[in-house]
């Protein structure tokens, strides 16, 4: 029988650090998928996975068990990812203070949705769709992207997402709505093609 999250956590808190291995092996894949969807980059996602577990281990005594352990991990991963993105942006601003945002950047890259699907080859089409999806996700702000990912892919409630991102319910709903709005706009030419 598999050891439960609670039993593994108790083992770690009792001084058996290897109990954490159970949790790492159980949640690494899910955390990687979440991290990839938030960062869009494999190396960054691997780093988020490592850092999330490191932080979780160090603050395990603070886990009160009110939320599922996976939700608690997602919260740590979300906060770390947002901090990391902010830090990267700050560094970029310091290094390139005079860079101007290209026109249309505020609302995304403003690429035009295609009117027609390119070519009959479904594999090529599928690859193209994946590229478009990644680009569409890139257009979201980090907060929108994280909130949307937690809602759409991880099925967390508004309250759980709000707790994770330290946002009120309305702000959380707005973030998710803005994310969907942007995705609809940027994927307008593709939604029908893929179905």
């Amino acid at each position, binding site marked *: 029988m598999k050891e439960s999250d609670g039993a593994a956590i108790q083992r770690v808190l009792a001084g058996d*650090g*290897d109990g954490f*291995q159970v949790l790492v*092996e159980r949640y690494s894949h899910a955390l990687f998928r979440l991290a*990839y*969807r938030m960062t869009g980059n494999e190396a960054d996602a691997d780093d988020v996975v490592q850092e999330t*577990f490191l932080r979780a281990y160090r603050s395990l005594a603070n886990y009160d068990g009110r939320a599922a352990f996976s939700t608690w991990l997602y919260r740590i991963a979300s906060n770390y990812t947002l901090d990391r993105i902010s830090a990267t942006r700050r560094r970029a601003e310091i290094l390139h203070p005079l860079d101007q945002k290209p026109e249309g950047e505020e609302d995304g890259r403003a690429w035009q949705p295609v009117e027609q699907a390119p070519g009959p080859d479904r594999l090529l089409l599928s690859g193209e*769709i994946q590229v478009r999806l990644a680009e569409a996700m890139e257009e979201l702000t980090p907060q929108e992207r994280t909130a949307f990912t937690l809602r*759409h*892919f991880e099925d967390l409630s508004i309250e759980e997402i709000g707790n994770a991102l330290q946002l009120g319910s309305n702000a959380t709903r707005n973030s998710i709505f803005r994310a969907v709005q942007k995705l609809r706009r940027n994927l307008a030419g593709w939604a029908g093609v893929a179905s």
Partner: protein
Amino acid sequence: MTHLTEEQLVLYYLGESEELAAARAHLDDCAACRADLAAVQRTLNLVSTWETPERGPEYGTQVWNQLRPRLGIRARFFSFQWMSWTRAASTAAVALLVIGAYFLGRVSPRPTPEPRTVAHNQLSDGTDRMLLVSVGDHLEQSQRVLLEFANTGSQELPLERDSAEQLLLDNRLMRQSLQRAGDRNMASVLEKLERFLTEAANARPEELPEIQRRMADEGVLFQLRVANAKIRERQRKLLPTASN
């Protein structure tokens, strides 16, 4: 009729609408809003097809192996959770060999003591030959793994790391047996080897160049070759004695 806004439609679709019943009632009567809702659904269905790169079944173990030294958790002496059965069997075989050799040495009648001229060790009877053979094989394997480790890139790190973990367990058992047998010189070689095997077993990719540099500076591979040659020489000296 006032149609549902885009925000109301999205929140309805996500099940987060604060006026769920009213929105549902409107949708029942309004074909235009139902079409808009279907469009939202198509977009989100499309987003659901977004693929993430695959990580292999060993990913969790790899994450743990990289994480463990950062958490300050040392590798367990015996940890069947992270050892495969093959590796566990290999460790058990070495352990049985070493423990068996130790006790056999205690109960077997020793040959008539004769003055010997072995300079640095007391390994001479049949029991100790078993240990010598094990140590010799172990040094060869360690040499091979550390040689690969010295020339490896970060992509291949997990393979060498696994081998190093296994050798680390064997190394501890043999070093303790050598210490008990009073072979301080060889125990000291294994002690040094243990340090590098520990580093190899717990290395993070970014630490690799530094470990490789220290391995080269301390000439660990050369020392292993010398130690192995000495062990083999001692085996050769002891074998004719055994046949007498």
